[in-house]
């Protein structure tokens, strides 16, 4: 009798433990209660696909074209309300997040051109912007209604425009920035176009017309747009306040990187895509790599680090921040609102601040997608942070497999690992784009990496059905979690 009582007591406590999570505050990701291993092969349940867009590669090459020679293939996605908007090559479609049904395909006649840019809103929007054109001549902008896929007015950015009372020729789009749900297009002449509620893009203002901007990124730290400036005696970055686009500050390469010796023969300072307030530069002989972090309000250097080059591919012996690897993989990380970045390292991940180098973490991560994989062939990209800031989500991929990985933002410990199901993973290898939503991710094919990896004279494409976009849900937490 005593034995029975003990057993019942244990069973009840077990059951209560299992049920109690229902009443607890839910984590922002359905991570298992028991963290997975930070090394070895994934054993957990796979991501669950709800809808996949099949690749159009076969259609693209029917006329004899070489698919790898086709420039400007892009794919990506964002989520607005209950709709996933996915785009691939010249297909822009909406999918119901819950059912996985395709609800519309936008009838945008791109005349054989392809998508250049699509809005990347961080909130629900009623309509979004698609910039498209032929062979990277991105001259057209149009809007699409999220609910219905209805296509609005098309703007030819190349038409004559009047900006600040001055009429001149337009130009093709250089980038598209979405800030607080509003789209701004920056053209090759540094004219900012604002896409209005009526869906029409209109020139708003002219940035510094005599500067050449090569890249522009919104800082995760502050409402500023960082524009990489290029030209003799003009290397550096300019920061524009959003949404006014007033010049906030400028930072010259020579000031940020005095180690470069004032050589202005070519520009070497490059913002990290993870956080454009971090910049990298290097000297070739002797090879040396430099990183700086700028103050978002003033543009002053508030932190810096450097290292001898050539060490970026080496495994870290002492589990410390690898500056060269950070510079190499600086576009594959994610910036945090406090200015830190979470970056891939050769054999790990790091959250780092150049202002307070000891405040972050460094974690050894040696994931193996399959038993005999070469860990050096795997590529990690940290793409997103959950809304509550608790987890950083990314992908680890190689030419064969991909898994979704979540780290705790606080200490870098592995919180979740989810492989893709074998029959639905094809197309999402080699650094897929990842869009995080509440309950899952949208993966889209990284055409640039795909063509590089599987193009002419390279690796053989993985066999099987190929997909460009996939909406995957995290598996439900198992009972033993």
């Amino acid at each position, binding site marked *: 009798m005593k*034995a029975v009582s003990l057993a019942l007591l*244990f069973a009840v406590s077990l059951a209560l433990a299992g049920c109690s999570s229902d009443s607890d505050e839910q984590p922002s990701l359905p991570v298992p209660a028991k963290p997975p291993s930070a090394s070895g092969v994934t054993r957990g349940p796979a991501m669950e696909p709800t809808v*996949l867009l099949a690749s159009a590669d076969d*259609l693209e090459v029917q006329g004899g074209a070489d698919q790898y020679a086709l420039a400007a293939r892009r794919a990506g996605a964002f989520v607005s309300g209950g709709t996933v908007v996915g785009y691939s090559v010249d*297909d822009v479609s909406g999918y119901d997040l819950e059912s996985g049904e395709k609800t519309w395909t936008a009838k945008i006649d791109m*005349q054989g051109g392809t998508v250049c840019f699509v809005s990347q809103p961080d909130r629900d929007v009623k309509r979004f912007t698609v910039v498209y054109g032929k062979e990277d001549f991105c001259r057209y902008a149009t809007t699409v209604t999220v609910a219905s896929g209805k296509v609005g007015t098309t703007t030819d950015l190349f038409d004559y425009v009047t900006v600040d009372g001055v009429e001149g020729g337009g130009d093709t789009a250089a980038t598209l920035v979405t800030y607080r749900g509003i789209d701004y297009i920056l053209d090759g002449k540094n004219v900012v176009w604002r896409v209005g509620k009526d869906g029409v893009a209109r020139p708003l203002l002219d940035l510094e017309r005599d500067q050449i901007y090569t890249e522009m990124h919104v800082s995760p730290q502050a409402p500023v747009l960082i524009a990489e400036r290029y030209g003799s005696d003009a290397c550096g970055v300019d920061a524009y306040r959003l949404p006014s686009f007033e010049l906030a500050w400028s930072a010259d390469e020579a000031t940020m990187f005095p180690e470069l010796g004032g050589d202005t023969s070519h520009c070497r300072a490059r913002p990290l895509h993870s956080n454009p307030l971090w910049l990298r530069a290097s000297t070739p002989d002797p090879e040396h790599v430099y990183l700086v972090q700028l103050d978002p309000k003033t543009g002053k250097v508030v932190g810096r680090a450097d290292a001898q080059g050539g060490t970026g591919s080496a495994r870290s012996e002492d589990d410390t921040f690898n500056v060269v690897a950070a510079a190499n993989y600086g576009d594959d990380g994610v910036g945090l609102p406090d200015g830190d970045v979470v970056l891939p390292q050769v054999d790990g991940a790091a959250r780092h601040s150049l202002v307070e180098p000891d405040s972050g973490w460094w974690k050894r991560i040696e994931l193996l997608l399959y038993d005999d994989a070469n860990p050096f062939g795997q590529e990690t990209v940290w793409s997103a942070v959950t809304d509550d800031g608790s987890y950083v989500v990314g992908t680890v991929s190689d030419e064969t497999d991909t898994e979704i990985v979540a780290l705790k933002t606080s200490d870098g410990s592995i919180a979740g690992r989810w492989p893709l199901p074998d029959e639905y993973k094809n197309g999402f290898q080699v650094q897929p784009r990842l869009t995080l939503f509440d309950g899952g991710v949208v993966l889209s094919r990284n055409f640039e990496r795909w063509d590089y990896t599987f193009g002419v004279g390279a690796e053989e494409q993985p066999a099987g059905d190929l997909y460009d976009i996939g909406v995957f849900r995290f598996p439900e937490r198992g009972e033993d979690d």
Partner: protein
Amino acid sequence: MSTIDRRTLLAGTAGLLVSACSGGSSGPKQTKGPNIVKPNTGTVVTAADTAVIRDQLNAAVKARDVEQLIGIIDPEDFALDDVRAWWTRRFDNFKRLDFITSEWYVGVPAGRTRNAAGGQVEYDGDLVFAHQVDGCDGQQVVETYQASFRKKSEDAPLELMHLGKPSERYLPAFWDVGKIDAIETKHAYIAFRTKDAARAKAFRDRIEQGATRAFSAMPRPKGVDKIFYALTWPEIDGRLYGGVAVGDADAHEYVHRFVDPKQLAAGQEKATAKAGLPKATGRVGLHEASFRRSDFTEVAAHEGIHVLADQWNDRGDIPTWAVEGLAEWGEAGSSALMSRDGGRIRSFFRTFEKRALKGWKEFHQGGHEYEMYVCAAAVYAYLERQGGKDAVHEAAEAFYGSSLRQEAEEKLGRSEKELFAATRKWLGA
């Protein structure tokens, strides 16, 4: 026993409770696959579309009908007058040169050939025009043209919007530079401006004799029983496709290397891989000065041998002495060579040895060009003496078919120096 009971009870109870706890979801989970969405096909240019264009172009060429060709192209094309002028001359000449067959290949698109929205697709891409002089060319000779295409909608036909100028890389041909006619002999086609008809007829027999001599000296390339001779004039000497700066040469061979037209249409300039087919052909340009030469027949034979030797031409670094020596050897034969020039050869051979190991310039421009030719021919005469014509052809094929001179030496099993030394010993020089 009690231990077993405890385990049994624990497992059963826990299973019951967990089941109850997860009871929010009823029954086993439904296994439903994802929704697989296929992309809209839209407007796609297919192989069938390009085949229609190709058939139309080929029909126009077969009919030699320039208006039929123009009718395939968009009437708004700004270049129609150029197309009409170019192809009127060609078709006019082709009607007389009825031994030339030709066909079109539609090249690889330079841009996307699909519009998923079902709207219009417009793109650029090359057209490849390939011709073959029957009996002269073992394969087709190619040239390329810029072109633009359009498909207005999913069900619309592919349209040829623009047929541009030919690439200068493969042009001009002899039939692009005048009103051309030709006469046929057993071993030659003799092409000429219509105003040069009398000269062509006057030299017909001697050209035929030269061609016959070339065929007797050389192995016959597969599919070849004639050599193409063209009576040229100063304005075009050396300027036809395959020509080089010819200086004061009295005749010239214009090399036409075979490129697989299908591969070229796909953007790759590659030789046809089929074994046994000649790798190149050529056209002999008989300059006006050649008709004043007493050894005209030898000149015709000499150039004809160049053409036939191109069957091995693999675009490598062919020693100049190996090229000119072969033709010089073949135009007259070993016996005539040695009886005519034996003394000159013996006295000059050591100088030849030094200069021949160098390049084209040292061979042609160091003075004593004639002696260089006959000494080079003497090397082949030595080879013929040692192993008959087979030995001559084996050596020539080694030099013509190697990318590097060293590679030819490896094939022959001896260096050029050793070959020259052996020849010198044979000559007693």
